[in-house]
């Protein structure tokens, strides 16, 4: 039997359902109302969480850069974000001349929607998830496409060349990094045999996928950071080149929505990485005590989120040609090869416990050695090319000197 202590989420849901049915509502209507309520609670909770996320990120980045960070409003400056929000709310909503009104106002909504929509399929605890659809992984990809669309609309409708350039960069980056993202996502799908998020989490019970497919996990993490457009991949808002990028013409709360979407998206990809590769809510006694599962999920997500912030605090921004070369010449082929290796290894495996782990780890180790050899060869080739070029220059200039 479910009791409040072991499984509070089902307990509350059952209680609410019996309450609504007791009021004399039809079962279909009661289910609809419950789902609406769940969606409202989930969305609101995520947007409120952003207050905490922005504060935590500012604090951590400040510590990395040897500063104090926000420390005036409330204890440890924790209410700084609230003060910032109040400032944003009181600002005027300026619409630039010649803006394309409907796309211009639709864009911030789409940006927020695409992020909050992702949380519908992330299982936070064994019984706490929005919808266990059987195409969860594909749903994540397609919702990401809507986010890209929002940014494209913002850049295009603002009637500003910097905004348009920023949007072009963003779309180029997001669309190209979707390729390794999808390929890396195929590895856990292949290991699970299902695209449902809950099934993926349940399949990670002895070993999380980060042990079975470390390379795919790394590729997924890198390309999802790029998908969010955060440092070191933040060239869509490179201040020195294109001012502020696609949201340059937005002010007040409309800018706030892009801001919230970006921070929440960073946390969301941390949650996705934790769910797909770190085992989500899996942990000791998570099946019996749902709250414990939620705790494991939060701990794992926060760990990944810390790494995301750490990256932002440590790495300089990459150039646009480096961004493209890194994606198309390195991660995409690597993701393809890793997918093939994993598929072969999974066919070889008969026993589904320790031997499986060892085989997959061995395959990944072979792959890492191959990458090292290939990169070394590429570096030698580049050096030889550079030397040859220098020699040619020297030969050309030599007769003149003589």
């Amino acid at each position, binding site marked *: 039997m479910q009791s409040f202590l072991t499984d509070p989420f089902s307990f509350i849901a059952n209680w609410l359902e019996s309450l609504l049915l007791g009021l004399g509502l039809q079962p279909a209507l009661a289910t609809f109302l419950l789902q609406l309520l769940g969606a409202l609670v989930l969305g609101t909770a995520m947007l409120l969480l952003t207050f905490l996320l922005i504060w935590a990120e500012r604090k951590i980045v400040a510590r990395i850069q040897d500063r104090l960070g926000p420390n005036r409003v409330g204890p440890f400056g924790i209410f700084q974000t609230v003060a910032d929000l109040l400032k944003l709310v009181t600002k005027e909503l300026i619409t630039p001349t010649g803006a394309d009104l409907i796309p211009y106002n639709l864009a911030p909504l789409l940006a927020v929607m695409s992020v909050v929509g992702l949380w519908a399929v992330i299982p936070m605890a064994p019984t706490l998830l929005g919808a266990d659809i059987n195409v969860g992984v*594909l749903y994540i*990809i397609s919702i990401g*496409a*809507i986010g*890209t*669309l929002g940014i494209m609309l913002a850049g295009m409708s603002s*009637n500003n060349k910097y905004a348009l350039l920023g949007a072009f960069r963003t779309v180029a980056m997001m*669309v190209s990094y979707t390729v390794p993202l999808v390929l890396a996502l195929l590895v856990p799908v292949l290991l699970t045999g299902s695209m449902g998020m809950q099934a993926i989490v349940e399949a990670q019970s002895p070993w999380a996928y980060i042990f079975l497919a470390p390379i795919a996990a790394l590729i997924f993490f890198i390309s999802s950071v790029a998908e969010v457009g955060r440092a070191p991949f933040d060239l869509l808002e490179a201040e020195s080149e294109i001012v502020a990028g696609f949201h340059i013409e937005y002010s007040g709360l409309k800018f706030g929505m892009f801001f919230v979407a970006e921070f929440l998206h960073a946390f969301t990809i941390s949650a996705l990485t934790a769910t797909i590769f770190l085992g989500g809510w899996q942990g000791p006694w998570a099946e019996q005590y749902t709250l414990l599962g939620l705790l494991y999920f939060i701990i794992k997500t926060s760990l990944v989120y810390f790494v995301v912030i750490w990256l932002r605090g440590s790495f300089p921004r990459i150039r646009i040609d480096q961004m493209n070369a890194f994606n198309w010449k390195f991660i995409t082929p690597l993701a393809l090869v890793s997918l093939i290796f994993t598929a072969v290894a999974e066919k070889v495996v008969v026993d589904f416990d320790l031997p499986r782990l060892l085989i997959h780890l061995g395959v990944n180790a072979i792959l890492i050695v191959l990458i090292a050899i290939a990169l070394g060869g590429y570096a030698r080739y580049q050096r030889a090319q550079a030397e040859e070029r220098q020699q040619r220059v020297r030969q050309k200039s030599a007769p003149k000197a003589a």
Partner: protein
Amino acid sequence: MTILQIAFLLIAFVTLVSALMVVTSPSMVHAALWLILSLAGIAVLFVLLNASFLAVVQVAVYIDAIAIMIIIVVMLTNDPLRSAMRTVTRAWWGAAIGALIILTGLLVMITQTPAFNLQPPPLAMGQEEYLETLGRALVDVNQFILPFEVASVLLLAALIGSIIVAWPFLAERREEGDR
């Protein structure tokens, strides 16, 4: 009429109207945006028909592609946001008559089909099983493996072609050939 039928009619109406706007909108970018609405309407229709896989693929493939299409539109046309192109040709009445004849023919055909007034039969399997059947059919030797592989060879050819076009070594050689 059930709620589902009302929703179907509403969404079908939105899809059709936005499809019409795609061809009548004077601005290229607006046409692309209307196309998004039209394709999204089709995705919702898939959801209503219990085909969530197709719906998700519809969004992932088409709407992602449209963001790129907008870029191409902006790059290939001058002042794409405010261009007031003529969207009606001089021979519009001929096209209208042709369309009307085809529409009448189709309507007559559709109303004469015996399935017109039938209720849809309940699905024989669960949604997930249909998805699995689809996946297996694509790689089954007796079913659709040939078209599936031909499509992938086509895509591979396009990929190799674009790499060859962009290959710096071959580009240099082409330039030397020109001289």
